[in-house]
């Protein structure tokens, strides 16, 4: 529960860039990351109570059933909440302020992500706005991020 001290000022001269953190899959989470690599946002679904859930776990957190399966989601979500970080984590130094968000998938589950392809300002980021998943290649893993999804009517009007 503390605000970490800002990173020390860079010494003179170029430094090798610090990479952004790369997730390392485990046996229980591997289907999620395999799905991302295939361009699909997958979560688990309980076949007993028909609910989706996230993060990966071997049994349904609601009814306890182990009769669960991995399913592809539609990749559509709404913006549940967020912060705009003004103190970059290692690897994010050149981003400018960036949005760390929790999004709610149409399937009813929430996950942390970044909102990309839009400048991170309170005006641009309105709670409950529609979003869609995009994937970013990072260190051999593809990471699900979200971007604003415009209504079909608006797209039609544009084009």
């Amino acid at each position: 529960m503390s605000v970490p001290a800002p990173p020390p000022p860079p010494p003179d001269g170029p430094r090798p860039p610090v990479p952004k953190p790369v997730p390392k899959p485990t046996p229980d989470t591997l289907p999620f990351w395999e799905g991302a690599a295939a361009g699909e946002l997958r979560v688990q679904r309980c076949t007993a109570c028909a609910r989706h859930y996230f993060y990966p776990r071997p049994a349904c957190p609601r009814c306890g059933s182990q009769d669960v399966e991995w399913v592809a989601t539609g990749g559509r979500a709404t913006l549940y909440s967020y912060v705009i970080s003004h103190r970059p984590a290692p690897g994010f130094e050149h981003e400018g302020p960036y949005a760390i968000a929790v999004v709610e998938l149409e399937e009813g589950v929430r996950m942390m992500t970044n909102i990309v392809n839009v400048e991170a300002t309170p005006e641009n980021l309105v709670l409950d706005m529609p979003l869609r998943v995009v994937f970013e290649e990072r260190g051999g893993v593809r990471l699900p991020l979200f971007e604003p999804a415009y209504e079909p009517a608006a797209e039609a009007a544009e084009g």
Partner: protein
Amino acid sequence: MSVRIVIAGAAETDELGKLPHMSATQLHLQAARNALADAGLGKDDIDGVATVGTPGPIQIAHALGITPAWLDGTGVGGSSFLFHVRHAVAAIRAGLCHTVLITHGESGRSRVGAPRFAPAPDSLPGQFEAPYGVLGPATTFTLTALRYMKETGLTHEQLAEVAVAQRRWSHLNPRAMMREPITVEDVLASRMVAYPFHLLECCLVTDGGGALVVTSEERARALGTPRPPVYVLGSGESAESPIISQMEDFTTSAAFRRAGEAAFAEAKISHADVDHLMIYDAFAHVPIYGLEDLGFVGRGEAGAFIAEGHTSPGGRLPMNTNGGGLSYTHTGMYGMFAIQESVRQLRGEAAAQVPGVEVSVVLGNGGMFASAATLVLADREG
């Protein structure tokens, strides 16, 4: 009638703040010695030790020369010391030990002998939080606030008022790190850390420690502990999600609610009985959740309640009277300091003493709304 349990000794480290000359272990041990002195006891009077993770109860007991018959290493974040008090109450009542020493020491600012924060890349936060550029609690604990603001109408000014109210208390406290009075404008003009949180809405980062001695009322009398006993009338503990994204409702903490209900029920008190309140305040929104989740105000009412001055000096529900994590001190696991201030208020020896405190409630948070514990403390038996 169950055995009555008291806090017979309580003390913090000699200094709080920036202490690069002391390791985390030294902070534990100094706090422990101070608490033992406060209780008028020696190490051989202690047969139970509780503390968090690094360095942990084995090392603390060994370093102090205590032979433990009971250990508790519960490490569930900044609330852990409230858990330790609750567990010590149960252990003493069960006859597992007689007198428990609970210690906290953390080199949160100077990081001397302190563990590193970064999660392993294959851990839950390593896979589902760290890749998104989170940098500690300032970018995770804070994530709930905009949803709360949208659903309740809490304003940015009301969020800032939490910091203003607590600075009114720390202004009266010579040991507080930040004492200069501030206004809402000052808060909103301070540097943005993680929108909507400005620097003055985020806790301090300090070095320090504290310790408690918990025993039965009967043994405290037999040992002749010199300080007014503080009775543990009730306690509760709970947990929700290990990662903030899975908190069920971003506008209310289920763990706060459950821990509070259990403590109030055991203590057989109502809200009207509470003279003084400590709510863990790592960030300005947390006391708002705490006031509502403990049931002191209705949903969406806490921001106005604080802004109207009800928790400030002279208000009807004095809260975070040491200045809190925002203005007093925050080593990283602040819960110990919240308990210390309740003990001081109940003994009548606080720097910003509230007149006539008989019942004080402490709500501790661990992680990012991950764990919670509540204590109901009193200057008299239940």
